[in-house]
């Protein structure tokens, strides 16, 4: 089974996963930033509970779509502590996650293009 087939088998993404990957597409974020970003990106429509958010994060990490790392201060490389004093964790897209997100984005674009084509035809 080639990689394209593997990616296609994971489509379409659910709305939650799509917004989560979209949030990380512009760069690494920590949990709360993802939580806020998903809400903003969806115009307040997708509001996750922490259990749903971290359940999705866990699955994406296990599937290798995103990865988890310790946030570091730029000049020294020292870990940034969170409120509990432990190194704060951030998440970023992996190459596979980026390809899957791009594939779903392309799929959505083709759907929109089809609708636009039909609308244009009806108006003509």
């Amino acid at each position, binding site marked *: 089974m080639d990689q394209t087939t593997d990616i296609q088998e994971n489509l379409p993404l659910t709305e939650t996963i799509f917004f989560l990957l979209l949030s990380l597409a512009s760069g690494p974020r920590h*949990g*709360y930033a993802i*939580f806020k970003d998903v809400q903003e990106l969806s115009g307040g429509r997708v509001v996750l509970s922490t*259990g749903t958010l971290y*359940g999705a994060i*866990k699955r994406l990490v296990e599937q290798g779509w995103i990865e988890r790392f310790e946030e570091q201060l730029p000049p020294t490389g020292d870990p940034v502590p*969170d*409120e509990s004093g432990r190194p704060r964790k951030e998440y970023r897209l992996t190459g596979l996650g980026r390809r899957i997100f791009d594939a779903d984005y392309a799929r959505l674009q083709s759907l929109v293009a089809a609708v636009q084509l039909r609308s244009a035809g009806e108006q003509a």
Partner: protein
Amino acid sequence: MKATPRWLIQAYNGSLRLFPVRFQEEYGDEMKIVFAEAYREAADISPRSGWMLALRELRDLPGNLIREHLANLKKGMLLAPPGPTQSLPRSALRGALVFGITFSLFYLVFCLLDILLNAGKSMYAGNSVWGVVIYIDWIPLAIGIGVAWLGMPAGKRRVWVPGLAIALGLFLFYRLLAPVFTPIYDSLIHDESIRIFMISLIVIQEALVGVIVGGALAWIQRAGKKWGWYGLAGALGFNLGWLTKALLGGAIMFQAHWMDGVVIGSPWYFAYWLAETIPHGLVIGACLGLAMGRRGEKVPAAATT
């Protein structure tokens, strides 16, 4: 900025303890921080927003708990691909667990229904719901779900389709065979001289069911030419399962002075059905799991998103 009430933090931390330990250790601290920050921000907008956030956590909690515990269970059963010497016992254990759990869950549902309708009556009274459903409805359903569950490692997203097909197929199978077998059983049950013949009919019936179920698993697992092992394991499993439950159920009945002594809802009642259902599922599952182990287990595909 308003602080998050201590009792709410404690309630949230308490709810996190309901998640699998591995999940708590990995994400628990982050979740606490995200919840506290989200609550503070929501409460700053309005007290109602803070409450809505807390209620959303509560609303999603049962679904999240079920999902994580199932994922944990599945991971535990599939973790570390077995080596050649471990493959068979591990797959047999997984099969036994799957069928044992599925059978016992169905048993529980029908027991509760039976107790609701017939509590306090003797099983011999003849109006037990088991008289209607046993061998006909719940076993095919349990097998269908068990097959779907056991087939999941194959990575087929729509593995429930053959599971459902098995449930329906067996439902019809038992229904269609019931008019054929029941009068024969009834006519033979009081005739000591031909009881062996009656048992041989059960052997044939259980073997047929086993071949159907094993064949479905082989199809789900894409077992190719190895489907014969699955069929054989199914035939063996269903017969051994039937034998085990008949012996255990008989022993319990003997202890309880037969059906007159078994009152619906009493400890003997539970003991009888526990002895009949759970070992039945365990033995069938173990045999089917052995067939899967012969072929080697597949690594589970990516979890559904």
